[in-house]
């Protein structure tokens, strides 16, 4: 009772009297860097009622992972609790003895990490790793532990549990590892499961399966869950309540549905406005720039420098308190002084960047029959890695390649860049509009490796990489990196510097950054520098390989906006590689869906994604992908999320293409035995330019009636 009262009215209606399973009070965690103490968490409060699912959202560096660790009594080396306490089942974790802590961890609270591949001991069989938790935590003998482990593996819907017990972590796929980690998490029969980004890094179909599993486990086991995530779709899908964190503090908290529909804090609004949505026909508007500043580095609200509603009062001490403000419902709190004003403003809904009507130029890139074979010798069990790829990119056009990991998207890009040798096919780069300064006569054969291509053609194709951390040399200045490709243009000295400054301006980086090292830039700035380097060569075609997938949503929105502007300004063609369908929906003109190196479907974004995030006619694989997408809408449920169905096959990506037939047939629920596995699928065209490679007749692929039903 007492505990519940102290929690600033955060309790969810209906479970007011029950003692919370987790209670965090005024928690302040600091990190020692050299001689300075850097605050990581500041005055964080959190209450989790039994059976409740609470989300902690925010961008990297906001302290959400530190909070997750604190809930299981774990702090990073060098961090310490400066103030406050963390109670699990009434017991203060940071004032417990080693034995008490072990007892709590093996029975009351469990942690599921982000990357199960790193979190499982590589030298131990997964069966032994779950078995030891059962034996030491629940006192079972070996036989009982084995039986229980098999039951738990079944519960998390792993196929053939008894066989999996003897596997080592490296023998399992990402999705399977995450399921094993969840099984180990629930093995001690905990009351609270703390999960740090449990689906990040997994393919979209696998993600949907894991989230469905979690929802199911929560309901059947009565688990309380704290879900730390930046994925608002997952939060909307799973969580009753959410906390939004910014710069080490909670800035807003309340029921998920209310926060999604009427966000009270400007940061929550900005976050929601940054998320691309598959139902929206354009890119998200995002929020105004700048990176978050560290907690305690300036007086007042940490978000004020980026806040469109900020007034003078916002930047004065003391920091705005997190309280239930007038006009908010009882269960909500916000740390914004101007909550009433903010709430009165129109909400983010349906705001998108306006799409400029496009006219595409002549064809830049044409690919026919591309095949890349990584196998050292042909074997009967599989086919080439990439096969039968036909592609065209026109000037000013964005063509997106989508598919799960292993779909061959990056292989295609790398082959075009001259870093891989194709085994068959014609790859041709055409000159830009005649008469233009950069125009070159003739065409270029892209089957040649990069070093053998003529410099004027080499510069026409430029790669932009996914990971901004590794795409720039940490020991060279940003200016140096951008200036390097200018040599391909024959520019040196002053001319090169002028051009470099132009490119910096193009990507929105101050020229003063030229002397900085990559480590002195934020993630978004580094990605901009990576784009600047590609742009410096004055290319016609950009190969953008997952360029925004490692970025936080607000940064992602601004980089996507930049890419969109650049292609209009410079009439660039993009081959945009991505796995986030909502991003592709917002940026691309045409989309090519790949499965195991083969094209399943291609068409305009409108044909493939339709008006509601699903086309009227789709390839079964495209449909699986689209159905797995979770739109960040309160109450939204991925269409695939039929929690009762055991998903042992469909949500596990395969790694090698079959030698004959349709690449997707092994996972396809509509496959025709004897046809799909023996013959290459024919091309079907529901409308001109929309091509689906499938044996099923179009009438079987049509689901316009179904769409009406769902929405």
């Amino acid at each position, binding site marked *: 009772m007492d505990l519940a009262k102290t929690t600033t009215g955060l309790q969810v209606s209906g479970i007011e009297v029950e003692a919370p399973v987790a209670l965090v009070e005024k928690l302040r965690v600091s990190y020692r860097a050299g001689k300075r103490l850097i605050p990581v968490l500041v005055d964080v409060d959190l209450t989790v009622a039994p059976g409740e699912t609470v989300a902690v959202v925010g961008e990297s560096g906001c302290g959400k*992972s530190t909070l997750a660790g604190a809930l299981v009594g774990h702090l990073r080396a060098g961090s310490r609790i400066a103030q406050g306490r963390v109670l699990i089942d009434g017991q203060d974790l940071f004032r417990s003895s080693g034995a008490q802590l072990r007892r709590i961890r093996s029975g009351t609270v469990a942690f599921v990490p982000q990357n199960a591949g790193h979190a499982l001991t590589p030298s131990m069989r997964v069966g032994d790793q779950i078995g030891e938790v059962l034996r030491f935590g629940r006192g079972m003998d070996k036989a009982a532990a084995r039986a229980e482990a098999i039951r738990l593996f079944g519960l998390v819907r792993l196929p053939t549990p008894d066989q999996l017990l003897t596997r080592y972590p490296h023998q399992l796929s990402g999705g399977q590892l995450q399921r094993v980690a969840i099984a180990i998490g629930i093995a001690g029969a905990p009351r609270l499961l703390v999960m740090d980004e449990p689906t990040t890094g997994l393919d979209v179909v696998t993600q949907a399966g894991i989230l469905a599993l979690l929802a199911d486990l929560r309901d059947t086991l009565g688990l309380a869950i704290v879900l730390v995530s930046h994925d608002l779709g997952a939060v909307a899908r799973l969580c009753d309540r959410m906390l939004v964190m910014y710069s080490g503090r909670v800035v807003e908290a309340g029921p998920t549905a209310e926060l999604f529909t009427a966000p009270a804090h400007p940061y929550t609004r900005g976050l929601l406005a940054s998320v691309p949505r598959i139902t929206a026909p354009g890119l998200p508007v995002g929020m105004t720039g700048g990176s978050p500043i560290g907690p305690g580095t300036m007086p007042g609200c940490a978000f004020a420098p980026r806040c469109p509603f900020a007034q003078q009062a916002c930047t004065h001490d003391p920091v705005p308190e997190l309280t239930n403000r007038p006009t908010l419902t009882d269960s909500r709190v916000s740390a914004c002084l101007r909550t009433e004003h903010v709430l009165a403003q129109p909400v983010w809904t349906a705001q998108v960047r306006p799409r400029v009507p496009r006219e595409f130029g002549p064809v830049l890139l044409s690919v026919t029959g591309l095949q890349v074979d990584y196998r050292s010798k042909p074997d009967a069990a599989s086919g080439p890695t990439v096969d039968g790829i036909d592609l065209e990119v026109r000037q000013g056009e964005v063509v997106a390649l989508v598919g799960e990991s292993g779909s061959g998207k990056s292989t295609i890009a790398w082959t075009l860049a001259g870093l891989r040798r194709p085994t068959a096919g014609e790859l041709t780069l055409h000159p830009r509009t005649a008469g233009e300064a950069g125009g070159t006569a003739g065409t270029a054969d892209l089957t040649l490796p990069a070093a053998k291509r003529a410099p004027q053609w080499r510069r026409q194709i430029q790669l932009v990489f996914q990971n901004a951390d590794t795409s720039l040399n940490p020991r060279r200045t940003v200016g140096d990196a951008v200036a390097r490709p200018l040599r391909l243009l024959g520019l040196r000295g002053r001319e090169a510097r002028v051009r470099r400054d132009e490119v910096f301006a193009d990507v929105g980086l101050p020229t003063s950054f030229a002397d900085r090292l990559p480590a002195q830039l934020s993630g978004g700035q580094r990605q901009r520098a990576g784009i600047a380097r590609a742009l410096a060569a004055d290319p016609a075609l950009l190969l953008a390989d997952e360029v925004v997938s490692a970025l936080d949503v607000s940064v992602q929105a601004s980089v996507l906006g930049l890419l969109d502007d650049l292609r209009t300004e410079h009439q660039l063609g993009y081959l945009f590689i991505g796995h986030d369908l909502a991003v592709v929906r917002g940026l691309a003109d045409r989309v090519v869906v790949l499965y195991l190196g083969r094209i399943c479907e291609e068409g305009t974004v409108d044909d493939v994604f339709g008006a509601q995030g699903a086309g009227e006619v789709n390839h079964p694989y495209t449909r699986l992908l689209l159905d797995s997408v979770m739109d960040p809408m309160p109450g939204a449920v991925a269409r695939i999320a039929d929690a009762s169905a055991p998903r042992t096959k469909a949500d596990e990506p395969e790694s090698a293409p079959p030698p004959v037939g349709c690449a997707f047939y092994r996972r396809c629920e509509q496959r025709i035995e004897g046809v799909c596995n023996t013959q290459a699928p024919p091309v079907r065209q529901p409308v001109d330019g929309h091509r689906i490679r499938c044996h099923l007749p179009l009438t079987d692929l049509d689901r316009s009636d179904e769409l009406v039903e769902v929405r």
Partner: protein
Amino acid sequence: MSGITTGSPGDTAKGDAPRGSGTLRSLLGSPIAMTGVILVLLHVVMAVAAPWLAPYSPIATSPLDAIVNPSSSHWLGTDQLGRDVLSRVIYGGRNAMLISVVAAVLSVGIGTALGMAAAYFRGWFDEILMRILDAVLSVPAILALLVVVSVLGAGAPVIVLAATVVYCPAVIRVIRAGAQSVVGLDYVTAARARGENPWATMVREILPNVLDVVLVEFAMRASWIVLLVSSLSFLGFGANPPTPDWGLMVSESRSLLTVTPWAAVGPIIALATLIVGLNLAADGLAKARGIDRITGGA
């Protein structure tokens, strides 16, 4: 987005973070490395300024003053021929240090070039190089050195050459491993896609990122070569009497250890402080720059 044990608080710009800045600064910033550098510098000064520092000639014998214990005129006493031990200790490192610097520069230089090339080109070049290295490494280093020295004599150029051949393979392996973790990174891929000259890519993109490893290797190999040269002298395959040389001095005064311990202990301390200094410098640098200092045997 960080795992439970990784990631720094805040993904934001690290304004004045010293991470990308110079190797020199991290050397100066680490007390361990500084201690090492100071020790090594002291030795260098001692070797260079030996003629001015040494109170006596290192080779002048004085049978009447033989085996004198430390006194105000002979701080470390004299040896069995009456030579001043302190003077001999001051001179005794010159030979070994000069050889070790030259041989370390050569073996680390060649090793860096070949190691980076092996990592960059991969394929048959890497394969053949590794086979040859394996064969060279499998021959006991001391055997190779003894054979070469016994045939060609113990001249400094011979020892430099032999030490280079013996230590180069290990350096190649270490640099290759370091470079391998860099060649796959996107900025090297970008250079490949730009069609840059392989050697230019290695020098511009790879070398700066393995430079710390190179420096650590240099300090370590230099220390090993000093040890090796001293061991050779000790075995009678290095400097010839009456040259002042630490290894030779220990060998000569070993039998008189109980009578005049300083004649042996003096050079031992000199040798050990030099090696400790080099090791501390390597350790401090490795620690400051976050390198795994995976070392082999002596």
